[in-house]
């Protein structure tokens, strides 16, 4: 037990305030650990940090891992802390790999990361990057598209990702707490999954740009060249190009969000990318936590294994 305590010191102390059971739905809130196996180069360490931020608030942000910790140690701590999922990053010469596993003996999905971009890269590529800290106070929504209902392993993937993030009850959810969204888009031809992370912003529709900026920024406008205040309000500013696209993206809000978006008025949903961007390929699905029988293997090696299983079952019969 002393050894167990020594290793436990390295982990984040459980925070008493955090709820483990969702008050409304009654389900257990899923928590996750994001860590790495083996030594990672610096950019992958940044990716690990980005993934941790993505999984906030139900993850250990400052999880400390030592070289001597192996999977069993994490499992031992996961039990008492109520951690349900592991996200494990590792690297070989060919590519980095991401494994998503459900504790304590759940299935493990192994993804090969073909390409990735860090959050700082994304922010640098944008004109006006936006990442206020209160984005991470609530967990993100998740959107899965293109998976279809066919294959077993794809179904398993969708279920797994749906369960990683806490579910929301639309009767009681506050729209102001839905601020982030994670998108997983499956491309049937290339069998690649695009992983994106966006921030949600609501903008009132039908309000001219100047008035909106004025209300949001609280800055007194420059009225030098105007004869009358009405000029300021009614001046036909150029319409934003994306106004036309927003037709489909408008929503009626049920409650007030912020100062500008009032209930039962139209607002446009604007997404801006934050966070890491990844291109994943599902390689392997295993029954156990990084062990166990292989349910699916991209490269078909387990074809023999399944045949053996079938033969064994036939023999039993």
């Amino acid at each position: 037990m002393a050894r167990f305590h020594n290793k436990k010191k390295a982990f984040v102390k459980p925070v008493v305030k955090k709820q483990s059971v969702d008050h409304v739905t009654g389900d257990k809130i899923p928590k996750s650990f994001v860590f790495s196996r083996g030594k990672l180069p610096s950019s992958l360490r940044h990716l690990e940090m980005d993934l941790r931020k993505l999984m906030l608030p139900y993850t250990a942000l400052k999880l400390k891992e030592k070289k001597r910790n192996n999977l069993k140690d994490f499992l031992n701590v996961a039990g008492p802390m109520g951690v349900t999922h592991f996200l494990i990053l590792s690297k070989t010469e060919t590519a980095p790999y991401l494994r998503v596993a459900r504790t304590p003996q759940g299935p493990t999905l192994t993804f090969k990361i073909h390409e990735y971009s860090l959050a700082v890269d994304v922010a640098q590529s944008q004109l006006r990057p936006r990442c206020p800290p209160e984005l991470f106070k609530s967990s993100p929504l998740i959107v899965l598209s293109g998976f279809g209902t066919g294959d077993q392993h794809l179904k398993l993937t969708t279920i797994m990702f749906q369960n990683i993030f806490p579910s929301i009850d639309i009767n009681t959810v506050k729209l102001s707490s839905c601020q982030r969204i994670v998108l997983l888009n499956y491309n049937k031809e290339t069998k690649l999954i695009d992983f994106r992370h966006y921030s949600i912003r609501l903008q009132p529709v039908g309000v001219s740009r100047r008035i909106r900026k004025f209300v949001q920024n609280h800055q007194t406008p420059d009225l030098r060249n105007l004869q009358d205040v009405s000029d300021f309000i009614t001046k036909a500013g150029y319409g934003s190009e994306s106004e036309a696209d927003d037709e489909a993206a408008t929503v009626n809000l049920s409650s007030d969000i912020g100062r500008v978006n009032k209930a039962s008025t139209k607002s446009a949903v604007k997404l801006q990318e934050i966070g890491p961007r990844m291109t994943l390929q599902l390689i392997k699905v295993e029954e156990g936590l990084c062990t166990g029988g292989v349910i699916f293997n991209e490269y078909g090696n387990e074809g023999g294994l399944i045949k053996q299983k079938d033969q064994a079952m036939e023999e039993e019969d």
Partner: protein
Amino acid sequence: MDTAIHLPEKIEGIKKRKSRRSKDRKERKRVKIFSGTGGKVKIDKKMKKLFRKRAREYNSDDDDDEANPEVGEANTRPLEEFSVGNSSEEEGIDGSDPDAVEEKGDSEDEGDRTQPGITKFTEGCRAFRVAFMKITKTNVSDNSLGPVLSAQKRLIAKKLAEEEAEWKSKGDAKKEKHLVGEKGHVKPANFLDSREKFLISVATKGVVKLFNAVNKAQNAQKGLNPSRFKDAKALGKRQKEAFFSELRKPSQAVDPPAKGDDGPAWAPLRDSYMLTSSKLKDWDKMPETTVGNDMDGIPLDSSSDSSSDDD
């Protein structure tokens, strides 16, 4: 012979110094080293020497001999005279010059001991050499790399080339390692290409779906499953809030949801408001997008409400 040497005893010390003057430099070294270890006494000695030196200078050149009565006496300073004599004849003499200068160096060191061990000519003091060479007007070649060899330049070039090759190979190895580590890391483009736009639109559709569903569910909440104990409190809270908001804004009339969802009279309440013309006409029937939340458990029409009412 330790720290016991003080000013009144200087004569004895001087005598000792005198006797050593003719001995080897090594022994003088020893004296110097020794004088270095004694703390205060060293300073005192130094100060003594300094004062003597100043006195000497003040008393002008001719009085050198007289200013150093302790240091030099008639029979004890033959070398000094010799060196003084030599110094006047330096320019002409080559052979004996080094010796003379050495002696001079000695005597200088002897007479002026403010800085023991710093300007020792035989230890390779370059400045001294430079000064001497200037006087004798010979060329001073600067060879920091060592003695002059015939093929010096080629040697230097070879060594530099070797070093550079070594650094280069190390740099290459590091670069390769770095590249392998960065494999897969791409920097996104500054603009939004079509793929990214498509993905953003997919995500936006999902968000819109969710928000609309939330809107519907939360507006249609009144009269909704009061039998469910879990939701009773939240429900009551929401009803209170809605009631108060209604009180505050009597002008903005919220259409009573009791009308049902089947066919609200007012156009904006209908599902297909604003969506008839766009591509999203039947967006809830599109097989692609699923919002992975409890939405699946709550179908968008009110069948669940009716079923729970029956409970």
